[in-house]
């Protein structure tokens, strides 16, 4: 039983150790005294964030921010929720992925900073702003970076096979067939059961919004018509065998990108970094385009990744923390540092004009890279996340793992019903009101 109890034991120790010191004040919104010296902690996993924050610290001697590097979005949230449950140990400021915000709000882990932050709505794309307000009046963070989806493809392979860049999903399917027929080892893409965020982005483009608020109850629509359309489409291509069924981000997928057997990727604006790391020997052969569309006359897009900066409910200096969060994501110098030093794609609307003037190194031949990215961000459809995204996403892993392995189109639609059931069941079981 060593390992079983080790985990329980560790959790129990953290909980009991911190429960003893849980008399933190919650009346801390207090007014910012300009002469008060304040130290803030900031949890983030973006690279070089400490260097970005140096710019703030130099200009604000009274509000010093310390960055505490995190392993990533999931572990940071797990740690934060443990600290919230324990009553102390949370940072003042926290990087939070968009899909985690409802979970954090539901756990009362992040503070509403609508009053402190002021009116920032016009500075961000609607889809990003919607993610931090959950469609209401409260503001649970300021958008930091976003991940509009983009299509990356091997232009040399396309030229050789005589395939034009697909503008619609029908054209994408035709291109996938043609490329696979010309060389049975090559695939235009893969359906990944490992990346629920990727599939959510594709569904978002088709007009899905898996969660929603209707009066005082939640709605869940993982198996709505738009998502079904996307699942059936990919199930058909996998069954036909013209699209691979192996997950992304495996050593195998990396090798396939590098040796030219995966010749396309439906990624997002942060994709060049991934390609550079995994497919270095193909540099200069990739190009980027907007995602293929369902309706060429009404172009739309989805989002994959991205995060906001939130103030936690345990912070004793909410006003100062909100001021820092606002600076980090709207000040031109900060945005420039976010893009150049922390290597993220800032969510702010004016990021393209103030910071992103050069294309990423891996796409140095594509001068309109960030113009395309800005266009991709502008046409991104709104999408609401719910308080149990983690449940839906882990259910996606299992249900679509089975479907992808079976290579049967019918299984893809059935997988959506499984996820829907798991998601609604979990909400109801926890006591949330769910509209049926």
């Amino acid at each position, binding site marked *: *039983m*060593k*390992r*079983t*109890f080790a*985990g*329980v*034991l560790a*959790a*129990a*120790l953290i*909980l*009991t150790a911190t429960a003893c010191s849980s008399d933190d004040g919650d009346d801390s919104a207090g007014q910012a005294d300009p002469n008060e010296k304040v130290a803030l902690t900031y949890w983030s996993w973006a690279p070089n964030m400490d260097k970005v924050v140096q710019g703030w610290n130099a200009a604000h001697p009274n509000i010093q921010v310390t960055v505490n590097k995190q392993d990533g979005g*999931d572990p940071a949230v*797990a740690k934060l*929720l443990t600290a919230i449950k324990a009553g102390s140990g949370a940072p003042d400021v926290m990087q939070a992925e968009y899909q985690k915000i*409802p*979970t954090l*709000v*539901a*756990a*009362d882990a992040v503070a509403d900073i609508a009053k402190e932050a002021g009116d920032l709505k016009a500075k961000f794309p609607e889809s990003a702003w919607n993610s931090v307000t*959950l469609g209401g009046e409260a503001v649970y963070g300021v958008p930091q970076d976003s991940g509009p989806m983009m299509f990356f493809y091997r232009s040399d392979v396309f030229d050789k096979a005589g395939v034009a860049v697909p503008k619609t999903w029908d054209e994408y399917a035709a291109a996938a067939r043609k490329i696979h027929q010309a060389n049975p080892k090559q695939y235009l893409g893969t359906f990944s*059961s*490992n990346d629920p965020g990727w599939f959510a982005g594709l569904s978002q483009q088709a007009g899905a919004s898996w969660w929603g*608020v209707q009066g*005082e*109850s*939640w709605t869940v629509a993982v198996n709505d018509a738009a998502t079904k359309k996307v699942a059936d489409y990919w199930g058909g291509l996998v069954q036909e065998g013209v699209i691979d*069924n*192996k*997950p992304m*981000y*495996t*050593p*195998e997928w990396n*090798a*396939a990108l590098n040796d030219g*057997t995966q010749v396309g990727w439906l990624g997002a604006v942060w994709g060049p970094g991934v390609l550079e790391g995994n497919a270095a020997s193909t540099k200069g052969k990739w190009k980027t385009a907007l995602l293929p569309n369902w309706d060429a006359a009404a172009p739309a897009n989805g989002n994959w990744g991205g995060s906001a900066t939130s103030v936690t*409910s345990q912070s004793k200096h909410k006003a100062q923390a909100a001021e820092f969060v606002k600076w980090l994501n709207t000040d031109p110098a900060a945005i420039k540092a976010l893009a150049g030093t922390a290597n993220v794609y800032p969510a702010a609307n004016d990021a393209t004009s103030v910071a992103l003037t050069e294309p990423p190194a891996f796409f140095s031949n594509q001068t309109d890279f960030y113009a395309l990215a800005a266009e991709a961000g502008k046409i991104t459809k709104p999408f609401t996340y719910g*308080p*149990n995204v*983690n*449940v839906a996403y*882990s259910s996606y*892993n*299992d249900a*679509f*793992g*089975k479907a*992808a*392995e079976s290579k049967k189109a019918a299984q893809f639609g059935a997988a959506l019903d499984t996820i829907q059931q798991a998601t609604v069941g*979990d909400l109801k*079981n*926890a*006591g*949330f*009101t769910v509209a049926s």
Partner: protein
Amino acid sequence: MRKSSAPYLFLTPALVLFAAFLAAPIGYAGYLSLRRVKVSGLGLGAGARSEVWAGLSNYGRSLTDPEFVPSVLRVGAYGLIVVPCMLGLALVLALLLDAGRTRVGTFTRTAIFLPYAVPAVIASLLWGFLYLPRVSPIVDVLSGVGITAPDALSSGWVLYAVANIAIWGGTGFNMIVLYTALRAIPTDLFEAARIDGASDIQIALRIKIPVIGPSLVMTFLFSLIATLQVFAEPMTLRPLSNTISTTWTPLMKVYRDAFVRNDIYSAAATSVIIAAATFVISYGFLKIVGSRAFSQEN
């Protein structure tokens, strides 16, 4: 100091450590397993959620989870592969090394033991690379001689693929335990057997294996418990394939509930169930074989 208080005084450090680091966490896990979070309405904002008494409902949900029974059966099948293969291999290797008692033995022994020193996560990553067709040198070599290797992580093979990692990592340890027990057998037993005309195989079957019975029981018990706790190997291989779900083994379900779904309550309930099952199985096994296996020592 009164005479009768002395034993308690000496026991205190052990008792305190036991209470703080074993009894209290187990008790707390048991307590958590009877609690749950109750949300009201949209569940947003302060005061929307509270921890309430759940009775045995977490246990009910764990046991009726459609993924739970398959994961238990899967671990059972996994154990049927791993335990006999690993212990059989360990026993044969130990007997061979013992029969030889040569200089080569030291090197061979170390070589067989070495995989045990590789952490399970590293071993799984290593084997993961060997399993994935596109990056696997094994598949390359086989296709070079005209054999198409099956995809080791496909649904028909994945159980063997995971079992193989455990066998690779665990055989060496069990071999050393059995070998050490073999070395402790007085050699006059063998000499007497040889004078009576017994062959090496007869000596192994009639003398060596019965004498190291207690060691075999112990290694079997360790292997059984390790089987029930299988976690690191499938967890590491999971992102590489479509065939390993997030609830592939019972412990993976505990991990998913606690750290992916943030539901430590049902995770605690499942932990308690696994702990109880492990205790019952281990204790039951010892009850059945214990008296027989250990009787020779008396």
